[in-house]
């Protein structure tokens, strides 16, 4: 009898329990506990690919909701991400060849002039946890580098972040650079960050403004479901 073919009710129940525990450990920022539960899951032969979504990503989704509600702040969210990453590391050897196709592809970065990448990092994490292939270009990224990445990866969307009123003007440069190179219509442009807004997105010719990570994922789901 193998674990894959004939799973007992007890094992299924145990998996359910561990799945919830792992999700809770991520929300509670317990890195060691998340790692321990992930090890228990693999040691018991209970790993399934969908745990990444139903447990790890689900925990991060709760964490980002708590952030949007003002319950969690960035240090808390970073610690949740550490716990999620610790669990994913344990699962990684068991994930080979099984990974489901990503829902879509996203290029993300903080625009030139902005070296604050914290918000962008959070959004990148949540988008990746949401099932997207993410190419993170980092911080202080020139328009030409965004344009190069669009040509290299053919993303569904480009996500631009700026935390500063003094650098948000560079978002317009990215839109113009894509237009100049003829790739503007190949992808949607989403902007985010404290100083920007829907009206600013409109003004510079971007497609959307996302006030937070959760909204960015909802927009991407919408963009990718309307594709094809």
């Amino acid at each position, binding site marked *: 009898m193998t674990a894959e073919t004939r799973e007992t009710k007890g094992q299924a129940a145990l998996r359910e329990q561990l799945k919830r525990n792992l999700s809770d450990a991520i929300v509670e920022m317990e890195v060691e506990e998340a790692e321990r539960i992930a090890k228990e899951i693999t040691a018991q032969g209970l790993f399934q690919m969908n745990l990444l979504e139903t447990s790890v990503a689900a925990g991060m989704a709760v964490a980002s909701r708590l952030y949007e509600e003002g319950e969690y702040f960035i240090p*808390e969210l970073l610690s949740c991400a550490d716990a999620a990453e610790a669990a994913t590391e344990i699962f990684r050897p068991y994930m080979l060849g099984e990974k489901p196709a990503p829902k879509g592809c996203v290029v993300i970065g903080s625009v030139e002039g902005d070296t604050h990448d*914290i918000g962008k990092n959070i959004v990148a994490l949540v988008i990746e946890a949401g099932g997207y292939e993410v190419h993170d270009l980092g911080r*202080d990224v020139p328009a030409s580098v965004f344009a190069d990445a669009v040509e290299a990866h053919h993303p569904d969307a480009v996500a631009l972040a700026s935390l500063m*009123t003094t650098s*948000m*003007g560079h978002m317009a440069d990215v839109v113009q650079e894509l237009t100049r190179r003829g790739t503007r219509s190949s992808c949607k442009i989403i902007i985010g960050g*404290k*100083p920007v807004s829907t009206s600013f997105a409109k003004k510079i010719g971007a497609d959307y403004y996302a006030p937070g990570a959760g909204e960015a994922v909802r927009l991407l789901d919408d963009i990718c479901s309307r594709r094809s």
Partner: protein
Amino acid sequence: MSDTMTGRERLLKALKGEPTDRPSVISACQYATYELMDAVGASWPEAHRDAELMATLSGKGGAEVIGLDAIRAPYCQTIEAEALGAKIKSGGKTHIPSIAEHPYKVDDVPEFPDDFLTRGRVPVAVKAVSLMKEKYGDQVLVMGGIGGPFSIANSLIGITPFLKAMFKTPDKIQPFLEMGYQAALTFGKAYIEAGADAIVIEDMMASLDMISPKNYRQLAQPYEKKLIADLGVPVILHICGKLDKVMLDIADTGCAGISVESAVNIPAAKAAYKEKGIRLPIIGDISPSGVLLNGTPDEIKDAVHDALARGVDIISPGCAAAPSTPLANLKAMVEGAKDA
């Protein structure tokens, strides 16, 4: 109605809560814009590293062209980090300098350099303040800008490592906070020596967009408070973002004025201050990425009137002005205060 007070008199009275001829208008954070650079013939990037140009752009630009009641230098928050070893990337003509490489890792033990005041752009900003004081000191308030200890500490190791360490091993960030405090105090004292009437502390990383009220109270506020006491001149404290939960803690720092964005519920803060007998003027909250950047001069005048109606005591952009802000819009803030 024409002005009967100098900007200096008006702002000093406004900071004390005394009556003025009309509402005072300043820009607590940076106000250099492309059109302002053209108007006075001093531009980025040269103005970041040349005291004369910095004094022209900030002094002539602020006092003569825009008509602000206070003038300030510099334009960015990277000067302390540069002097403490950060590698800086020029922002060119269009943007402010940024940090390319942080000087420390979390596990390092930083040591504050004796020659801080001679490093990087520190002497440029100090000299610019003395030039501005000489030329405009009898007309407007001259202010030197420094980072808050919490924000400087962030810039020494980078936001993500800093915030992670703050959460897990708070002992490790104490030396960086101490160093941030020393840098801010040393820089601030040098401005005062050079003639600054007031200091602006920009503590953008101490925002509740970043950290919890508990962390603000434990790690940011005590250093702000100590710094303000040790500077011994009026201090305007600027923090970005939502601050509703810590507005009383901010008042407790002893600052002469708090500069905020429109994310703050100003009527609620005013009511809480009144109840506690706190007379701290609130400075703000014209949206630098909204109406100030995109609105018409008439819309900006309306925004000024609206801010005054909500209890704002001194008009200012809510944060740094975007460099592409039209000059007419900055002037409209002053016009809005004149016909208020």
